[in-house]
């Protein structure tokens, strides 16, 4: 009898290790957008650990933390017995050690709006929640199409102030650049082949943006408004955006884009 149970247990274990999807993975979600996506496709029960900044939805705050964006505590991670780690950057210290210890590493680094949708699908496949992922993607795609058809203006030159001191903006091949492009805006520094180029006020004046977008974090927006009105003229339009919505390549991106579009339509550009 005992032998039979043991044999059956062995077989179960064997199948579990051969077909992980049956067992349910134990996932480390090592970037905020990964965490958000997993919750959105109903894979939250499989998440065993996260990193700092995984703060949405609220329930994610209760997940054990095993590191930050730039470093993973391998011991803490392994103690959670993960089978899969979904990472932003495979070169993050600690990731290669996890791989050596038998954890499957899945990179997730979407840099365009389309890649965000593909990324949702990919994460659905990896976690065995393909149905929910596909449903989410088709919903996001519908919203995106609707949004695109609403755009009535053309290529408004925009300056995106990632940071005020030092003054940083988004260059070419960045996620923000693509988000701006998709809602019909032209990033005035879109030709710079740098990720977050440091620029000076003079260059912004010379680039003649009609609109300044300021992420509403860590800065006094009213001061920035006064500052840009001084340098770009009183008729410059300035809007703010929640950076968590448009900087994170996750499922809330469409909320951010819709919010931007609503604000833009209110401006009568």
């Amino acid at each position, binding site marked *: 009898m005992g032998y039979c149970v043991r044999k059956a247990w062995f077989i179960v274990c064997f199948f579990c290790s051969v077909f992980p999807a049956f067992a349910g993975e134990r996932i480390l979600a090592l970037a905020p957008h990964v965490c958000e996506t997993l919750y959105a496709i109903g894979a939250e029960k499989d998440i065993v650990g996260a990193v700092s900044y995984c703060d949405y939805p609220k329930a994610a705050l209760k997940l054990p933390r095993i590191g930050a964006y730039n470093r993973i505590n391998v011991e803490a991670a392994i103690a959670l017995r993960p089978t899969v780690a979904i990472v932003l950057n495979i070169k993050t210290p600690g990731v290669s050690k996890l791989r050596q210890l038998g954890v499957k590493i899945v990179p997730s680094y979407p840099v365009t709006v389309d890649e965000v949708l593909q990324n949702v699908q990919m994460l659905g496949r990896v976690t065995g929640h393909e149905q929910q992922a596909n449903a989410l993607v088709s919903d996001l795609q519908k919203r995106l199409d609707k949004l695109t058809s609403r755009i009535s203006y053309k290529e408004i030159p925009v300056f995106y102030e990632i940071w005020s001191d*030092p003054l940083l903006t988004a260059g070419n091949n960045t996620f923000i650049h693509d988000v701006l492009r998709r809602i019909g805006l032209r990033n005035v520094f879109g030709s710079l082949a740098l990720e977050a180029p440091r620029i*000076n006020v003079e260059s912004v004046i010379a680039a003649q943006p009609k609109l300044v977008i300021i992420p509403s974090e*860590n800065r006094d927006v009213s001061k920035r408004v006064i500052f840009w009105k001084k340098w770009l003229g009183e008729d410059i339009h300035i809007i703010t955006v929640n950076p968590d919505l448009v900087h994170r390549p996750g499922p809330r991106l469409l909320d951010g884009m819709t919010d931007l579009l609503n604000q833009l339509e209110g401006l009568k550009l």
Partner: protein
Amino acid sequence: MKLQKNELLLIAAFVGIAMFVIFIALGVGEHWINPLNPSSDMEVLILWEIRLPRILTAFAVGGMLALAGAWFQVLLGNPLAEPYVLGVAGSAAVGAVSAMMLFPDSTLAMSMGAFIGAWVGIAAVLSFSFLGATRLLLAGVVLAAFWGAILMLLMALLPERSLMLAYAWMMGDLSSSSLPVWSLLLVWLLALMCGVFLSLSLDKLLLGERHAEALGVHVQRLRLILLFLASAVTAIAVTAAGTIGFVGLVVPHLMRLLFGSLHKAVLISSAFGGGILLIMADTTARTIISPAELPVGVLTAMIGVPIFLYLLLRRA
């Protein structure tokens, strides 16, 4: 060259060069603006409110760093000494980054933090000033390592978003100094005057402490004054522009190669030469990959090293 013999002529020559460099630096930028004939109100605003304050800050900070470097080199009797050698930059950075953690959206708090941090570092160094030059240098280097370790600790704790500011500050940033330009120029002038006043004693100190004593220099007092002066000037330069490397090390040597090692000439030419070098470096930094900018620290070394090595070889 006879310039080193006649300091008025030397000053006049440097004022001329500085004016010329400032004029060019005012003109270049995102696009050329003729400083004598700007074509619109916006150009006037760009010239006098963006470019000029930055250029003058660069001049004052560069001059101060070069002066402080020259002083530290005599004080410690070591040609490798530079303004940050005793850890003042490190403690200033610790102060700035701590302020960044406590008051994340205030540039003023960061400058205050840097200033207080610099003085904490100076106090630490001053308490070792009774040691001889070699041990003082050793104490300073060890303190610098200590501040460096604390800085690494703070950086590891700092949220990702604040790191950008911390890095920008540590690589030197002349675009957003929160100290008014006139105050920096005033400090520069005072430092230069102190330098000229002390130059004869410094020349004697160069002969060795015992000879200096014999020539009537109160060595212990001179060392204390010098340590205080050099540290204070460094503290203000660091507060204004973050840590900008290399100017303080290379400019005094450059000036010695050009004008000999009498201190009146060395200090006057360093005060101007450091300023001119930093203006050139900063102007290059803000225009070379325009509209993007490079950190100015990159350029000080890239411009300073070839000039320095060339002069070194020519002398040999």
